[in-house]
């Protein structure tokens, strides 16, 4: 097992048995569930919308080369500097170089999972810059030195009392547990930072090829301030974010808001097409767009699993996943947790090291049913399992499955196993749930059903 797998198994076992955590996640998501379903019902035809969204993303991803070039041409025509980053290191270097060239000290940043993916904050801090997260949830976890717990709700695991304590310790300003008062504390701190910042970094939700524009969705207005106030704006996005046409946002923006946060539409939806143009009163003087590959093209080359690039990072699959809900977001120790993480992490970061995430699923399919762009997530988990077992089979598992085939296929051997099972079952209580018990993984928490005195096949024989 990889180190990551060992860590996952032990953290998962601890949190799955933590009833406080189980209740916390249930409560945190229950309001969202109600709102999500209300908003879904406001679509004339939710299933039709999913089919259409899947078709749009398929079109974008299948012609990614053309749409990306079109996207870049539009941006460049308005004076945007576009950078192509093949991997995380390259993306970090590009951004650190831009920041250095501006003699910047302070950077404000709005929420971007791609920045988490490339560990951008660490790189900027290592280079001597201060980076401040401006999304409230991200701001809180940055103060706590934690990774996001969820790709849309980064601080959903925290109770208001814990947030107050964090503010008291780090900001020395925490009047009460009242969310509004705590928000005002964050706001006071952040307003100063926006005014002082030299560079603003954002992510992107969509990249519109037709118009060469970046679409950013948010609820706090922090991304707008991040983009508008500093002299330099940098947007980091994965190459799969492309949608062909501006009109596609008429579908994707409400869809993302619905399944992402249970909203009809997010509070702020902004399009960025370039730096401040001649005659304009505001906006950044410079606009850089960094397009990140980081193994996305390898996934693109895999015709069978390419559709995983359709993901719009809405988090819907996490919210319905019974595994995510029982082990929590930090247990995965990846940028992208939950079902989508189980599918793409082995592609982005290495199949053998991360295959355990593809195995950590009952394959219930709730994720695929929830996915607004219809990615068959649980089927891709199966394909990752197949690929990992083919590349590096486990000796014992292979042997066991090989030995099982003749037993399952031959009546006489199956009979023998039936009889042997009955005998074994008589002796089993002696070792049940002890380290000697071969079925211990099951029997530690669950009883085994008894083998019947007369099996179905034995009964069938009596009728012939």
């Amino acid at each position, binding site marked *: 097992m990889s180190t990551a797998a060992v860590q996952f198994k032990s953290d998962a*076992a601890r949190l799955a048995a933590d009833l406080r955590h189980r209740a916390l996640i249930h409560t945190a998501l229950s309001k969202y569930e109600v709102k999500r379903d209300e908003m879904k019902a406001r679509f004339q035809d939710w299933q039709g919308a999913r089919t259409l969204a899947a078709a749009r993303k398929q079109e974008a991803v299948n012609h990614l080369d053309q749409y990306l070039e079109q996207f870049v041409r539009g941006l460049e025509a308005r004076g945007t500097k576009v950078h192509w980053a093949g991997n995380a290191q390259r993306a970090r270097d590009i951004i650190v170089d831009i920041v250095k060239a501006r003699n910047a000290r302070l950077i404000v940043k709005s929420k971007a999972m791609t920045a988490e993916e490339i560990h951008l904050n660490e790189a900027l801090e290592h280079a001597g810059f201060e980076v401040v997260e401006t999304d409230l949830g991200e701001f809180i976890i940055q103060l706590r030195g934690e990774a996001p717990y969820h790709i849309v709700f980064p601080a959903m695991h925290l109770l208001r009392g814990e947030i107050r304590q964090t503010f008291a310790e780090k900001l020395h300003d925490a009047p009460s547990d009242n969310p509004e008062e705590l928000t005002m504390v964050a706001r006071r701190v952040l307003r100063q930072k926006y005014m002082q910042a030299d560079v603003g970094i954002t992510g992107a939700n969509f990249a519109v090829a037709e118009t060469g524009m970046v679409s950013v969705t948010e609820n706090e207005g922090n991304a707008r301030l991040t983009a508008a106030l500093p002299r330099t704006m940098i947007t980091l996005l994965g190459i799969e974010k492309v949608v062909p046409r501006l009109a596609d946002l008429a579908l994707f923006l409400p869809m993302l808001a619905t399944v992402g946060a249970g909203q009809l539409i997010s509070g702020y939806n902004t399009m960025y097409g370039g730096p401040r143009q001649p005659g304009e009163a505001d906006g950044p003087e410079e606009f850089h767009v960094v397009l990140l590959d980081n193994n996305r093209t390898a996934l693109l080359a895999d015709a069978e699993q390419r559709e995983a690039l359709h993901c719009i990072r809405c988090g819907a699959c996490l919210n319905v996943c019974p595994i995510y809900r*029982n082990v929590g977001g930090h247990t995965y120790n990846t940028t992208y947790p939950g079902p989508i993480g189980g599918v793409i992490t082995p592609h982005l970061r290495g199949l053998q090291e991360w295959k355990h995430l593809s195995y*950590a699923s009952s394959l219930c399919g709730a994720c695929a049913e929830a996915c607004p762009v219809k990615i068959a997530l649980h089927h891709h988990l199966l394909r990752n399992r197949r690929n990992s077992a083919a590349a590096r089979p486990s000796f014992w598992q292979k042997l066991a499955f090989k030995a099982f085939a003749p037993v399952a296929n031959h009546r006489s051997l*199956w009979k023998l196993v039936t009889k042997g099972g009955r005998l074994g079952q008589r002796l089993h209580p002696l070792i049940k749930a002890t380290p000697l018990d071969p*079925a211990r993984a099951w029997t530690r928490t669950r*009883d085994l059903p008894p083998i*019947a005195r007369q099996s179905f096949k034995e009964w069938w024989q009596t009728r012939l």
Partner: protein
Amino acid sequence: MTVTLFIPCFVDLCYPQVGISMVRILEKLGHKVVCPEAPACCGQPAFNTGYWHESRAVAVKVLKQLQDAEVVAIASGSCGAMIKVFYPELFAGTEHEALARSLAPRCYEFSDLLVSKLGVTDLGARFPHKVTFHDGCHSLRELHIHDAPRRLLAKVRDLELVEMRETVCCGFGGTFSAKFPAISTAMGEVKISLAEQTQAEYIVSNDSSCLMHIQGLMDRQHKPTKTIHLAEILAPS
């Protein structure tokens, strides 16, 4: 009609009454039931673990034994999904692909066979209890079976069906339950708690594998709720 019955390994060994109930129901409806002796497993454990080559060694026997069947009744939604949905991918590019594709539409999970293929919902059964229904995930999301078992339950005399608040997985997941026992157990506990909220005496399902997990966990935790397969409720006494 001649119905070929596919009895999965765990039904054969641990839940023979489920298979026997199916035989009795089909015979009562006037159908001839045949049951090939040899195949004991659909190959899902190896398939789900990633060992598709080893899975094919088991699955190919199933294909061959069922190839001439007019209609196949599968005594588990999960094995049904394996044969109907996953065999075509498992055998893609092999000499058996055409057979896998031709077999799939002739296979039915048992409740789906009764309702969709045979057009039967009332079997004259009586079961004077309050029950809740657990949808096996493979049955629900791979085979899209939701209404069939409920239509059958609706016709059972003196039976009261109370739905659970949420539709969630019971946490079994085949080899998942042994690879990640702690997560699997937590999922099972969530499921049982949802079932208990309905105050049902029985958790009914069309999949014995889910019930094996739920019952195994309830037995260990000394919970009073019982599990029963749909076919056992419907079978003539």
